[in-house]
């Protein structure tokens, strides 16, 4: 199974019934696969007139009660940003799959990169939270796609699945979990009557309001303006403060359950490699080679990159004397690692941004005692 | 017998744009000093509802008076 195809399978198994998109390399297989499979399960696929329209249609479908997804790559991801922010503000569940290619601009459409790490965090304007998952295998693509849909529904937020060309186009053996082992999350529904319903009234401790679909009898107003619990605009500082804080807290509160990662060979390790996405494949090879050479190296592969798993990185990295962050950009996530380590431990970047998958040798070269 | 009516103006909604006054065939509406419309000549209302139809602020209601009373 191909990485892009695994994303579709994961999303469908999580209950996705709507896809809107615009063709762009190297993500187009996702659209093609949804176009073939959605009608078979009674779902809807539409190819919109542009990237922005696709994002808008996805949010519209989400409000109409569907689990909705779009997929794109760098240039399209740039275009979608305004509406990703809108989805965050109105709390519309949706998933955006970005199969990264080398940029900036049109860049290298058929080559891998991880240059959108910061864009996935800060691409849309304003001070918003972000939930971003990064698969480093085809199996991950399936599982994290499933998880992304679940989290979008559960937290009522856009979730970004950040792939790269290598993982998107990779085919490898995947053993899928049994369907009955997969727990599907659905957005919360209101308990009271339509007359007393207030769309952003937080009744539960989880800080997440229920979202009834259009047509179910619950009539309410939704706006990208700052709004109070009634859904209507308000610019009162206490209202705007409360809303923005809640948007962050509803994710922060569950942060620890959101950190997905893998570790290898941490025991007695005095050096650490941190990586994610396709780079993590090279990092794993580098780690294996280093171990074979007798070096005490550990490996941390991050699957959740935003919110940045600060606690995990601290816990795993605090006692090391060299940390190497391997990524396919000029140094994006490394800034977070440096911030967390606060100059106590040297952090080195193994970086590559020329459209070629970073090699194990490049990562090995940043470890101490290799030669 | 010609129809008659009582005109009610919701002062909270009226913005005094005078559109109602223009379309009133009997010219019974006028702008008050405080920028709201008022009914200057209630006796002459013929309950044609032009003001209701034309008011962009939905601030006017006309009650038809039962002539038989």
């Amino acid at each position, binding site marked *: 199974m191909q990485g892009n195809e695994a994303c579709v399978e994961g999303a469908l198994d999580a209950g996705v019934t709507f896809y809107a998109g615009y063709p762009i390399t190297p993500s187009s297989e996702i659209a093609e696969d949804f176009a073939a499979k959605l009608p078979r399960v009674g779902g809807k696929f539409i190819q919109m007139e542009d990237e922005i329209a696709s994002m808008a249609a996805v949010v519209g479908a989400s409000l109409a009660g569907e689990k909705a997804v779009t997929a794109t790559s760098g240039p399209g991801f740039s275009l979608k940003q305004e509406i990703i922010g809108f989805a965050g503000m109105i709390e519309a569940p949706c998933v955006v799959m970005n199969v990264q290619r080398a940029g900036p601009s049109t860049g290298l*459409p*058929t080559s891998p990169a991880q240059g959108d790490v910061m864009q996935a965090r800060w691409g849309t304007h304003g001070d918003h939270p972000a939930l971003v998952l990064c698969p480093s295998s085809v199996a991950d693509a399936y599982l994290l796609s499933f998880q992304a849909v679940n989290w979008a529904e559960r937290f009522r937020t856009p979730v970004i699945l950040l792939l790269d060309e*290598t993982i998107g*186009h*990779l*085919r*490898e*053996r995947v053993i899928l979990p049994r369907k009955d082992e997969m727990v599907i999350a659905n957005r919360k529904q209101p308990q009271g009557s339509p007359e007393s319903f207030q769309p952003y009234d937080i009744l539960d401790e989880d800080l997440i309001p229920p979202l009834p679909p259009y047509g179910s009898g619950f009539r309410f107003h939704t706006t990208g303006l700052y709004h109070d619990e009634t859904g209507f605009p308000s610019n009162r500082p206490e209202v705007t403060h409360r809303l923005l804080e809640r948007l962050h807290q509803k994710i922060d509160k569950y942060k620890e359950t959101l950190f997905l990662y893998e570790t290898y060979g941490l025991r007695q390790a005095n050096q650490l490699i941190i990586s994610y996405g*396709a780079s993590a*494949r*090279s990092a*794993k*090879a580098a780690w*294996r080679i280093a171990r074979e050479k007798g070096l005490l190296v550990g490996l941390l592969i991050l699957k959740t990159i935003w919110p940045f798993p600060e606690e995990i990185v601290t816990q795993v990295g605090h006692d090391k004397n060299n940390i190497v962050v391997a990524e396919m950009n000029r140094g994006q996530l490394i800034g977070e690692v440096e911030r967390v380590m606060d100059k106590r431990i040297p952090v080195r970047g193994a970086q590559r941004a020329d459209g070629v*998958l970073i*090699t*194990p040798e490049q990562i090995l070269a940043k470890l101490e005692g290799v030669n | 017998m010609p129809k008659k009516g009582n005109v009610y103006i919701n002062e909270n909604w009226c913005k005094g744009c005078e559109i109602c006054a223009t379309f009133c065939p009997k010219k019974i509406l006028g702008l008050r000093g405080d920028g709201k419309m008022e009914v200057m000549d209630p006796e002459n209302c013929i309950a044609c509802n032009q003001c209701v139809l034309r008011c962009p602020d939905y601030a006017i209601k006309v009650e038809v008076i039962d002539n038989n009373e």
Partner: protein
Amino acid sequence: MARYEIRLSGAGGQGLILAGIILAEAVVKFTDKEVIQTQSYGPEARGGASKAEVIISDEEIDYPQVNKPDFLLALTQEAYNKYNRDLKEYGIMVVDERVDIAMRGGPTYVVPIQKLTQEKLGTRMVVNVVSLALFNKLHEVVESEKLKEVVLARVPKGTEELNEKALALGEELASNLNQYKIKTKEEEEEE
């Protein structure tokens, strides 16, 4: 089999990426080995140089890119020029007879794949399946019947017979491969 890297290259549109996908599928379906298939392509849908890469291994495959192929197929001059450089010194190379190659150390076969496909099957469309069968027979990755099963599930309806013939031709070429072998550097020097 330890990590074994395969690169199938030719012109875009020759279907080599599909051949790579089929090979990977057959490995997943009928062996316990790990496999990875990747592709690289230019912006052209037809023409240009195109390659499909497959890695087969008994162990987990971490780094997913082909580094130094153990096996290279090049159906066109452009593909050969672009993709032969990092072939392992003693890796196997199979090229179409119309490709001019430099003398090298590893086993090298110059096979009239395209010509024979055209002559025997009346079309070059299935040159990818011929090449795939040739590779499979040579390395005995999966049994012929198993490969056929995967191929027939992937090809367009109505082309089954043609593809079966293509598989047979590929196997025949593999069985007679020695007749296409050219001398290595060392053999040349010995003479």
